[in-house]
C-alpha cells in the first residue's frame, strides 16, 4: 500500500482503528478520536497482520463494531481466532503484539463486535492473566438483533481511565449477540470484586436492571461493558461513538427546545476525551516526545 507517510514527532495522541473483513463502524470511531483531539488512523487489518503497520507506533488500539467475517460462527470468533493463530513472517501472532502493547502501559478498546472479539480472545476480563476465554457474549434473550437507546451507569469502583469521572451515559445498542454470560460463581465473584463489570444497563431511575428493554439483552450482572484488571483493556456492547453529537439522540429536538443552551456534544464523546486526556497526561511526565508513524487509508 502506498499511502503510508511518515510524520515528524507529533504531540497528538495516536489512535489506531482497525477495519476490513466486515468491520463497519470505523469512520465514526475515528471521528470520535478526532473530536476528542487525537489523531485517528484507520488501517486494514491485513496491514497489521502482514506487518506493514505496527501497533506499537500508537497509544490506543481500537476494535470497532460491525460483523467481522460475517459473524457466522458467533460474533467476533473468526477475528479473535485470526489474532490468536495467524503468524506473520517473523512467526509472531498479533496477540503476541497486543500482550506486549498492554504490558507497555498502552490501551485497547473494543466496541460491540470489537468487544466480542476481545471477549472471545480472552483479553477481557482476563482474570487469569493468560488470555483465555473466561466469559462469553451470546444471543440476546429476546432472540433478536435490536437497535435501541439505553442508559448506562458507570461502576464507581472501576479503575479504568476510559471511565474516569463518568457516572451515567445514554448510548444506542445495536446487536444480536450482546448477552454476557458468566459461568461459574468464582469468575462472577472475581469480576465483581475487582469492579471489572464497569458498565450496567439501568432503568429510568438509574438502577441497574434486568428488565427488557432497559436491559436489552439479558446480560449477567446487567453488564454492558468489561475491563481487564489493569483497566487498560476496555470493551462495551453499546456504541459511544454513535453519540458524538446531541443530534444523534432520539429526543434531541425536545431537549433543545427545553434548553436552547444545551451542549451540542453527545455523551459518548466524553469517554474518548477521557482516554485522550489520560494519555496526554501520561505523556507530560515523559521526557521526550514520542516518535510516531502514521498511515492512512
Amino acid at each position, binding site marked *: 500500500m*502506498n499511502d503510508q507517510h511518515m510524520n515528524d514527532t507529533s504531540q497528538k495522541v495516536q489512535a489506531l482503528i482497525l*477495519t*476490513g*473483513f*466486515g*468491520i*463497519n*463502524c470505523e*469512520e*465514526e470511531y475515528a*471521528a470520535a478520536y478526532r473530536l476528542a483531539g487525537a489523531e485517528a488512523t484507520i488501517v*486494514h487489518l*491485513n*496491514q497489521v497482520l*502482514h506487518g506493514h503497520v505496527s501497533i506499537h507506533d500508537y497509544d490506543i488500539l481500537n476494535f470497532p463494531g*460491525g*460483523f467481522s*467475517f*460475517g*459473524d*457466522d*460462527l*458467533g460474533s467476533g*470468533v*473468526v477475528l479473535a*481466532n*485470526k489474532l490468536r*493463530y*495467524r*503468524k506473520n513472517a517473523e512467526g509472531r501472532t498479533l496477540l503476541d503484539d497486543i500482550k506486549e502493547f498492554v504490558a507497555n502501559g498502552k490501551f485497547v478498546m473494543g466496541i460491540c463486535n470489537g468487544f466480542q472479539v476481545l471477549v*472471545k480472545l480472552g483479553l477481557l476480563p482476563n482474570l487469569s492473566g493468560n488470555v483465555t*476465554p473466561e466469559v*462469553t457474549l*451470546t*444471543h440476546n*434473550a*429476546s*432472540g*433478536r*438483533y*435490536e*437497535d*435501541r*437507546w439505553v442508559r448506562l451507569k458507570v461502576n464507581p469502583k472501576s479503575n479504568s481511565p476510559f471511565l474516569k469521572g463518568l457516572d451515567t451515559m445514554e448510548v*444506542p445498542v*445495536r446487536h444480536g449477540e450482546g448477552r454476557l*454470560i458468566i459461568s461459574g460463581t468464582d469468575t462472577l465473584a472475581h469480576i465483581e470484586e475487582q469492579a471489572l463489570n464497569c458498565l450496567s444497563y439501568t432503568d429510568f431511575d438509574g438502577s441497574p436492571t434486568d428488565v427488557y428493554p432497559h436491559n436489552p439483552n439479558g446480560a449477567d450482572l446487567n453488564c454492558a461493558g468489561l475491563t481487564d484488571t489493569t483497566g487498560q483493556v476496555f470493551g462495551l456492547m453499546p*456504541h459511544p*461513538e*454513535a453519540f458524538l453529537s446531541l*443530534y*444523534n439522540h*432520539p*429526543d*434531541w*429536538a*425536545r431537549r433543545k*427546545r427545553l434548553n436552547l443552551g444545551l451542549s*451540542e456534544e453527545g455523551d459518548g464523546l466524553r469517554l474518548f476525551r477521557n482516554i485522550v486526556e489520560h494519555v496526554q497526561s501520561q505523556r507530560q511526565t515523559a521526557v521526550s516526545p514520542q516518535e510516531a508513524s502514521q498511515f492512512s*487509508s
Partner: protein
Amino acid sequence: MDSTQRTIQLLLKPGQHDGEGQRVAEVAQRHLGLTTGRVQSTALYTVRYPVTDEQLRDFATHCLQDPVLHDVALDEFRHEPTYKSYILVAKLPGVTDDEGISAQNALGDFLNQPLDTHTQHIFSKRLYFLEHELPAADLRRLAEELLGNKLINRFESGPITDIRDYTPRPGGGAESITNLVPLTNLADSELVQLSKDNLYALNLEEMRVVRDHYVAIAPERQAAGLPADPTDCELEIIAQTWSEHCKHKEFSAVIKYKDADTGEEHEIDGLFKTYIKNATSEVDRQLRANGNDWLIKVFSDNAGAVRINPESLFVWKVETHNSPSAIDPYGGAITGILGNNRDPLATGIGGARLLFNTNVLCFGNPEFNGTLLSNQLHPRRIFEGVRKGIEDGGNKSGVPTVNGAIVFDDRYAGKPLVYCGTGAVMPMQLAGLDSWEKKIDAQDRIIMAGGRVGKDGIHGATFSSIELDETSPATAVQIGSPITQKLAMDFLVLATRRGLIKCSTDNGAGGLSSSIGELATISGGAVVELEKVPLKYPGLRPWEIFVSESQERFSLAVEPAKMDELLALGREMEVELTDIGYFTADGYLDVRFDGDSVARLNMEFLHNGVPRKVLEAEWSKPQAAEPTLPATTDYTDVLTRLLGSLNICSRESVIRQYDHEVKGRTIIKPLMGATGQAPQDAAVVRFNFESWEGVAVSNGILPRFGDLDAYHMSAGAFDEAVRQIVAVGGKLPNLSYGDSNFWSVNDNFCVPDSVYDATTNPDGKLKLAKLVRMCEALRDATAAYCIPLTSGKDSMKNDFKADGVKISVPPTVLYSMTAKIEDVRQTITSDFKQADDVVYLLGETYDELGGSEFYQLFGELGANVPQVRFDKAKELYTLMGQANDQHLIQSCHDLSDGGLAVALAEATFGHGYGATVDLPESLPVHVQLFSESHSRFVATVAPEDVVAFEQHFGARATRLGVVTPDSQLTVRHAGQPVLAASTAVLRHEWTNGPVNRIIGFGQPVGEESAR
C-alpha cells in the same frame, strides 16, 4: 493424514438456553399445528480437508466451540437419548454458505496455511432433534415450511435411529459445450415454444426478428467461419439484453390510448420518453435557467447523481426485487438490498461511499388464514423472510436502514413488492477525473471482482420478465453474501481513489452478459474469455457462466498499465480479481471459451434490434359512490381501531431489527422522542462529521387510491413524499437563483401484466390505461414542484398464477425522494415538544374520504379520491420553508393514512403530552378527522411565536388548540367533545397492533417510558 469427510457437531451445554430449539417448537405448534415436544438445535460442520484427528479436535475446541456454551462431538451425531426424530438442513450445491466459508477461514488461520476460501472445504448444516416421533410427512413439512426452503436447502429427516447426512458435491467436470439452436425453418408456434422452453421470455415478433437476423447475416457468419445458426449463448445474450427487465420494452412501446368515457383517442410515443425523460429535461431547463446546475447524471447509469457541493455528489437508486422474494423471501430480499447497493457503488468510475438504505415492502395480510395456492408462500412467511433479508443485507454491510414503509393489501399475497433504495456520496473528482463519467478505450482490460460464478441466479433477468407460476425455476434463486460484498466494496472505495479503475459496473440481472454488454457499448466492443472466469464449482456451460447472476460481483474496466497495482491491492484486501478479456472497438461482442467462439454478436443488433411494441390502453372511470355510514359513530373508538389497523399500526419490531444509525450520522430516525416511539415523516442523515449538511429521505406510496383513479393515486404519492420532506424542514428546489438545493427522485412502477390478451388478460387495456394515467400525474407533479427524476425502474409482470387462479398486484408506484438539508440541526421532528405550544392545521381539508383508512374500517371504498392541488401545495411548502428560516415551527407531522386524528395521536407518542383541539365548524366531524386530503400538516408553535406564525401563514393555517401536559387527547366540535382518549391507551393500541404482534413484541400498557 485422513482426507475423508469429518464431522464436527456443536451442542449447547446442559443448562444453556436453546432459544432456537424453543422457537422452532413454538412456531411449529402455532403456525403448522405440529406438536414436536422439545426441540434441540445443533450445528454441524462437515470438513472435507485433510486434517489429523488431533487437528480436527483442536480446531473444533479452539476455533468453533465457545467453551462457555458448547460441547463438541466429533464424527458422530450426538443427542439426548429421549429424542425420537431428526431433521438435517443442508444447502444445495452452489448455494452460498458463508458460515462454512467462515469456518474454513478459521481453519486456515488455525493451521497457518493459505487455505483458498473460494473452494469450499467446510460445509455448515443444522441438525435438529425432536422429542416426539413425527410421521415423515410432518417432518418434511416442518423442514420445508419452517426450517428452510426446498429451493436452497436439502433436507433429510426421519427417526433418530437412522440419521442420514448430506453434503453437497457440486458439478462433475467442466462442460465446455456450446450447442447450436437452429431457427431458420421454425414455424411461429415452434418459435414461441422454443422461447418458452428456454425461458427466453421473448414474444413471437421478437423471435421472428432474431430468426430473420440470422438468415440475413448467414453469409457474413460463414465468411467469419461461424455457423449460420445461433449458438445457445447468443440466444441467451439476446434474450437477456432484450428482456423487459433490462430493456423496458413496455415503457418504450407506442401506446394507443382511448378514453372510453369521452371517446378521445391519442397515441403516446413511449411512456419513458414522454412522461419521464422529457419531464425531467424540462425541469432541468428551468433549474439551469435559474442558476441551479446540480443535476449531473440522470437515467444513463446505474444510479442518478446530483451535486451536493463543489466537492461531492449524491448518488441515489431504488429498485425492486419482487419475483425472487416471492419464491425465496430471505434470499430475494437480501440480494435485493445488496444488489441495489452495487448500483451507487458502480456509478461512473465507481467507489461511492454508501450512506443509507431504505426499503418499502408490500405484502398480503400476514394473518391470512385461507388456503394457499400451489407454491404460494404464506404472506407471514414472506414478511418474516423479507424482513430478515433486509436486516442482514443492511446490518452486515454497515449501511443504516433509515427509512421505509410497509403496505398491506391482499393483492400482494401472490407477488410481494420489495423496493430497496440506497443513497451514497462520491467525490466529484477521483484521481483527477470526473467521477460520474464512464470512459473506456479499446484494449482496456475487463476485470471481474468479488464473488465467483455458479448456477445460482441463471435466468433472473428473463424470469422477472414473466409472471410467476407454480413451476418457477429453482436456479433463479440466489443467496447474498454481505461479507463478500463488504470486502469488494471496501476495495472499490480504495482502488477508485487511487485511480486504478477507469470505470465499473455491477453484475446484477443478466450477469456478465449484461454488465459487459453494456460497458462494451462505450468502447464499441469486447472480447470475453470465459475459461478464465472463476467458478464456484465445475460443470457450468459457457452460456451459463455468461448469464449467471451469482452475486457480489463487479465488472471493471482497467488500463493495462494499472493492472499490477490493482491486482496487488486485491490480494492485500482479499478480493478476488480476474482478468477475463478486453474491450475492443470493432462493433462486436465476442465471447470465447478456450479460444473457440461461443458467441459473436453485432452490438448494433444486440442493443437496438429489438422491435418496438405497440400496446393498447383504454380508460373508463370506475363506478363509485360515497357510502352511507351509521348515523352515530364513536370517534374515539374509530381512532383506536385505526391506530391498531394493519396499515397504520406501529412497525417498531421491524424497525428496531434494522440498524438505523451505524455510521453515526442519522439525525432523524424512523422513531424518535423520549419514548423512542414517535413515528417520523422523513429520515435525515448528515453527510459527514465535518459539516452539518445532510439529506432528507422520504417515500410516497398510496396504492389504495388507485382503485378510484390511478392519476390521483400517483399525484398523491408524489405529493406525500414531497410533503414528508417539507415536514422535516426541507425546502422545495429552485426557489431562488443558484440556491443549490438539490432534489433527486426515483420512480418505481410495479404493475400487473398490462398487455391486453383476449383470453389471458382481458382487462389488460384498462390496466395499461391506469399506468398511462400514473405517468401523466408524474409528469404534472415534477413540473409543478420543479423536482427532477434521476433514476427509476419498472416492473411489469407482478402476477402470480397457480391452480387456475391469478393474483395480480394493484398498480403501484413508489416515489423515493431525497433533498438537501442545509443544516441538519434546524430540522423538525413530528412529536409535540412542550405544553402550551399552539397546535395548527396547515393546508386545507376537503370531503375526500374515498379510499381512506376510515372507509376501509367500514368495508367501503367511497368515491371522492383525494386530489393534489399543485399550485396551492407549492405555495404552502414555500411558506413553510420561510417559516422554518425564522424557527417558527416546533413540531410538524404530515397528514396521511387516517388523516388528522391519526396525525394528532402520533404527535403525542414521543413524550407524555396530550392536546385539546377545537375543530372549525366548516365540514362534518368525520371528514375533518379522517379525510386523507393531501398537502396538509399538524404543526405546533411556541406561544411567543404565534403572532408571527399566523401573520406568515394567513388563511393557510387553522388554529386547532394547544398541547397539554396531561396525556389526554380531546377533540371538540361546536363546543361538544367528539373524541377523548388517553394518549397512553392510544399508543398502546398502536404499539400492540398486528405487525408488532406478528414479529413478536409489544409493550404492555403501564410499562412506561422516558420522562
